[in-house]
């Protein structure tokens, strides 16, 4: 170890792996419907894609977890995004291909992707 900067680099890299233990209330929460209906509709792939993209784009303030069935199984895979302060948006019939846009437009820039939300098509 030569410098404090070198140490800080290791620290920032290592924090990525333990961030999830902070239980930080200021994190943006990504909740993916992961009941039997969700899994059958492909929710696992959607979750994996979220994890990959968040990792790749180096976004720190996001917690990805699962949530239960909401009772309208035809809308699965369903993804809820909650910003601190409880502003919640629900996306329905999400596929891995749609994940990137949600992250870029909503999570990074704060604009809900209206086309993917419930009721947009009908």
């Amino acid at each position: 170890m030569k410098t404090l900067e070198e140490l800080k680099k290791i620290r920032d890299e290592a924090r990525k792996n333990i961030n999830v233990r902070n239980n930080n209330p200021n994190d943006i929460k990504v909740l993916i419907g992961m009941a039997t209906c969700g899994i059958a509709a492909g929710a696992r792939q959607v979750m994996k894609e979220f994890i990959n993209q968040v990792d790749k784009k180096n976004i720190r303030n996001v917690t990805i977890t699962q949530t239960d069935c909401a009772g309208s199984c035809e809308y699965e895979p369903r993804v809820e995004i909650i910003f601190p302060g409880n502003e919640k948006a629900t996306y329905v019939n999400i596929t891995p291909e749609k994940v990137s846009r949600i992250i870029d437009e909503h999570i990074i820039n704060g604009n809900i992707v209206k086309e993917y939300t419930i009721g947009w098509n009908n």
Partner: protein
Amino acid sequence: MYRSNILVCGGTGCTSSGSEKIISKLWKEIKIRGLEQEVNVIKTGCFGLCSLGPIMIVYPEGSFYSMVQVDDIAEIVEEHLLKGRVVKRLLYKETLDGEKIKSLNETAFYSKQKRIVLKNCGLINPESIDEYIAMDGYCALGRVLGKMSPRDVIEEIKMSDLRGRGGGGFPTGVKWELTAKSEAEQKYVCCNADEGDPGAFMDRAILEGDPHSVIESMAIAGYAIGANKGFIYVRAEYPIAVKRLNIAIEQARNYGLLGQDIFSSGFNFDIDLRLGAGAFVCGEETALMSSISGKRGEPRPRPPYPAVKGLFDCPTLLNNVETYANIPQIILKGASWFNSIGTEKSKGTKVFALGGKINHTGLVEVPMGTTLREIVEEIGGGIPNGKKFKAAQTGGPSGGCISIENIDIPIDYDNLLSIGSMMGSGGLIVMDQDTCMVDIAKFFLEFTVDESCGKCVPCRIGTKRLLEILNKITSGNGTIEDIDKMEKLCYYIKSNSLCGLGQTAPNPVLSTLKCFRNEYEMHVNKKKCEAGVCKSLLRYEIIEGKCKGCTLCARNCPVSAISGFVGMPHEIDSDKCIKCGICMQKCKFDAIIKH
């Protein structure tokens, strides 16, 4: 990136209740469901709630599962990790508030605690230096070497008012200053991880849960006093701690945080382990250094103090594990932060190992000045089976008891001394109404008689005589003169022994005499042990009117001390009776009493 982390306690307590098996089963179930890229399992140090082990905590939710069995793992992985449904039946009950799940910090056990030295225990993988660094580890060392002079470091520690956690409470900064002032080519930094007090395991928990905090701190101390070599003296009975220390030292060397020219400052420092065989006296500083240098672990007279002439006759700084674990925090957050916590003369926190008759046995860290009542009733969850609090022992075999009258005194170094006990290293044994205080004094004295190194007469022979008198009293042969004789002998041993072991060995007797003299007198005058512990003073008796003559007791007595015909009242032959109590447990008519 992992979306979820499962932290499983890998401290000594949970390891013995099976956490290793749980970890391998977790990985198996995780792989079956293809979650291994998303969920990570981490083995940590102690969470503190040892009585509820094995313990695991699942993040990001922070769900706290207690008493987890291997058979529960498949359900936890399927429901919680795959589907996101917390398995409520396995949660620690205190975190359940109706339908709501509270966080751990809101539970009675944790809410009154303040974690400084245990802050990483149960939160990081102690075998990963990166995780320690992620929690600002080695930042304090970097700051010290980059921006502070040795003088600055000592001033900061002095200003913090940190006092030694090994028992005596000597001001740490002053000790550092004295050692720094000793001029010598070679100096040493030593860490006392002997932890000989029976019932204490704070230091073990720190070494198992956060070994780097001690290593970082010893390097800081080395810089401050001008030493380039450190030794950690740890007992061989702590295999997990030894293993993790070895891993941690190796990792620190690989990162150049130990070794030559650390942080390009020109400062060199390295650490070696020395294993002790577990003799209590080897925790005494001069005996410890004698043992490290390969000689018999026997104390020698002081002065010269180790700051002048210690290990290999060189100036040596010795601090306790918990003392060291405070240092990086003090450097990072400042002396004024640290000394804003605690009481006027005792700053910061103290870790206690809670044991004995208490619901939550385990490890707690509280600000100095917390009362015994808060620790026992709130954090510790009270006394089991509705029994009443009688006393608590602090300081182990060197300490004394705190009786109910003093349960509301703020615990710090000076208050404990003023009521005839002492802080000690942090063992805290709770006793209920069924405890005989004479028996307790005897227990600790048996320990010191065994552990006395034998070098000086007052301790070697004095403690033996003391124990003999105690045995006489508990077997019903004591006289009132014996009590006075015992008291005199105590003061004699205290003032004439060479080292702290002998000087403090009579404390358990003196303090129980002070608070519970009537119990000693009862044993002597009435030949009675009210708690029903001292067997020689016990009598089992069958109440004629209640006995139905069912013969159950007679059939179960291991020494055939009970006689009687079927349907007729039975009788116990007290000469034969070995007071095992089986008959009383067996009798369905409550016809047998002890007194």
